C-alpha cells in the first residue's frame, strides 16, 4: 500500500470521517429472490462464499473545501463508498460521520417519476432530499434556469432525452446548497457546453468551502480539478493523496492488470489444441 500524504489542513471537524469502514453484502440476498431460490439456498447452506466485502478497512478524512476524486477499476467499490457516505447503506463494520447537508443524487435523474413534469419532479426530489418545501420553491427558478431545458420543464419526464434528464438531475443536486456533494459519473453526461457549465458549478461548490466527493473515469478531470484522489481496488484503499500521483499509480496498475490478463488468456489459448482455440479479445 503506497500512501501519499494529503494536503494537511487543520480543521477540527472534518466534513467526512470514515473509520475502518467495511460494507458486507450477503450474496444470498443480493439477488431478487423467489421462494424457489431461497429454498434451494436453504438446502445448500454451508457451501460457497456467502459474504462479500465490497469495502474493507476504509479510513479517510475530508475537510470542507476539498474535492476528492474516487477512482479505481470497475467493481472496486467506488459507488458503494458513495452510497455509504450518502447514508443509503449503513456500514457493516466501522463508522462514518458526515457533517452537513448532503446532496446525493448519485446517478442523476434516475429517481425521477416518469409521469410528473420536470417542475413537479424538482419539488419531489427536494422532498426526498429532506429539504423544506418553501426553501425548495425559492430554488425552483435557479434550478430551471441552470438545467436550461426550455419548454420541457412543464412536460412529463418520460418525454425527456437522457441528456435533458441528466441536466435536470445535476441542476437539482447542486442547487440545494449542499455542504457535502456526492457525484457519481456525472460529468460525462450532456453536451460540451453543459459539461463545461457543470464543471464550473462543481468548482464553485468546492471553492465555497464545501466538500465534494466524485466518482469518475475522466482522469483529466481528476488531475485538473480535484485536490485529492483516492484509489480503490477490490474494496480497499490502495493509494490516497495528490491526484497526479494517484492517477499515475492507477494507470500503472491497470496496465499491469491488462498485461496479466493477456498473459492468462494466451496461456489458456496455448493449452487448447490448434483449431479449437476460441477467439478471445484482450
Amino acid at each position, binding site marked *: 500500500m503506497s500512501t501519499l500524504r494529503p494536503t494537511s489542513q487543520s480543521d477540527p471537524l472534518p466534513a467526512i470521517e470514515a473509520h475502518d469502514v467495511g460494507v458486507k*453484502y*450477503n450474496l444470498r*440476498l*443480493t439477488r*431478487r*429472490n*423467489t*421462494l424457489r431460490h*431461497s429454498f434451494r439456498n436453504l438446502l445448500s447452506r454451508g457451501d460457497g462464499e456467502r459474504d462479500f466485502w465490497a469495502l474493507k478497512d476504509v479510513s479517510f478524512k475530508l475537510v470542507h473545501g476539498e474535492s476528492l476524486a474516487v477512482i479505481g477499476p470497475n467493481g472496486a467499490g467506488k459507488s458503494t463508498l458513495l*452510497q*455509504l457516505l*450518502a*447514508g*443509503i*447503506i*449503513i*456500514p*457493516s*463494520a*466501522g*463508522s*462514518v*460521520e*458526515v*457533517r*452537513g*447537508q*448532503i446532496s*446525493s*443524487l*448519485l*446517478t442523476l435523474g*434516475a*429517481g425521477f*417519476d416518469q*409521469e*410528473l413534469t420536470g417542475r*413537479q419532479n424538482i*419539488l*419531489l*426530489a427536494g*422532498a*426526498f*432530499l*429532506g*429539504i*423544506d*418545501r418553501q*426553501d425548495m420553491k425559492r430554488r425552483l427558478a435557479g434550478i430551471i434556469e441552470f438545467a436550461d431545458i426550455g419548454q420541457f420543464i412543464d412536460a412529463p419526464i418520460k418525454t425527456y432525452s437522457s441528456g435533458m434528464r441528466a441536466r435536470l438531475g445535476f441542476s437539482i443536486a447542486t442547487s440545494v446548497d449542499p*455542504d457535502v456533494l456526492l457525484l457519481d459519473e456525472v460529468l460525462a453526461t450532456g453536451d460540451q457546453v453543459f459539461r463545461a457549465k457543470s464543471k464550473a458549478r462543481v468548482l464553485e461548490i468546492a471553492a465555497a468551502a464545501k466538500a465534494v466527493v466524485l466518482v469518475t473515469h475522466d482522469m483529466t478531470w481528476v488531475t485538473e480539478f480535484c485536490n485529492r484522489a483516492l484509489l480503490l481496488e477490490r474494496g480497499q484503499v490502495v493509494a490516497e493523496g495528490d491526484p497526479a500521483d494517484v492517477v499515475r499509480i492507477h494507470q500503472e496498475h491497470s496496465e499491469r492488470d491488462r498485461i496479466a490478463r493477456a498473459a492468462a488468456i494466451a496461456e489458456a489459448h496455448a493449452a487448447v489444441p490448434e483449431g479449437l482455440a476460441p477467439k478471445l479479445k484482450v
Partner: protein
Amino acid sequence: METVRGAAPTYSSSAVRPGPVGLVREAVGELRSRRQLVRYLVQADLKKTGADSLLGNLWWFLDPLLQMLVYVVLVSVIFQRQQEAYPLFIFAAILPWKWFTSSVGDAITSVSSQDRLIKQVHFPKIVLPTAALAVGIANFGFGLIPLLALMLIFYPEKVSVYLLLVPVIGVVQLVFTAALGFVVAAVNVFYRDVGNISRHVLRLWFYLSPALYGPVTMAGLGEQHPELYRLMLLNPFYTLFTAYRTVIYGTETANGMSLPPSAPDWTALGIWLLVSLVLLFVATILFKRIEPTFAKVL
C-alpha cells in the same frame, strides 16, 4: 439520522442500530418530518391513476358500482338468493374490501418499485408504504360518494345518523391494513412472490369473510363445519364487515328481511383496534429492522 437544514447537522452511521422502541420512535419522527414527501407522493399517485384513462378518476365511482352489479347478478339471479336491499347489503362490504385490497396491493410494490431512488438518495423508506396507505384512504373516501348516492336514490329509508360511524370503523381497518402493509412492503423486497401469493390469499379471504353473505348464512355453515365457523369468527373482516353493515344496511334477519341500522358491536371493534395496534407496532419494528438492507438487495 435526519439532516435538517440550518444548525450544521451531523449525520453519522455505524453498524449499531437502536432497539425496538427506538426504531418505532424513529419511524414516527421520520413520518412527521417527511409529511410533505408523503403528500407529494399521494398527489402524484392520484394524478396518475386519473391521467391515462378516458374516464379518469370517474373510475373510482364506477369500479365499486360495477363490481356490486356483478355480484348482484351472480347471487340474486344465478343463485336466486332473496335478501332485502341486497345491492346495499353487499356494497357495505365491497367498498371497505376494495379499500383493503388496493392498499395492500399498492403497499406490496411501494418499496420495490422505487429501487432506483432508494439506491440514489437517503430517505426514510417508511414514507413509501405510508403514501400507499394514504392513497387508499383517499380512494375509500371517493368510494363513499356512490354509496351515498345509491342510498339516497334507492334506499332512503336506510339513511341514518349511524352512517357517521363509518369513519370510526375505518380507523380500525386502517390500523390493521397499515400493519399488514408495512410487512408485505418489506418482505416483497426480498421475495417477489408476495404479489402473486397475496392475490390468491386475498381472494380466499374475501370468500371466507361475510361480504356476499351475512351472519345468518355463516351460522348455518357453523352447524356443518364448526371448526371453520370458529375460525371465521376470528377473522377481523368478520367484525369489520358486520360493523359496516350494521351502520349502513342494518342487521340481516333469518327470513331475508332486515332490521334498521344501529350501533356496531363496540367490544369486538375495540378488541380488533387493540390487536391491530400491537400488530402495527411489531410491523414497524420489522420494517425498520430490515430497512438498511433495502439498498443492498434492490
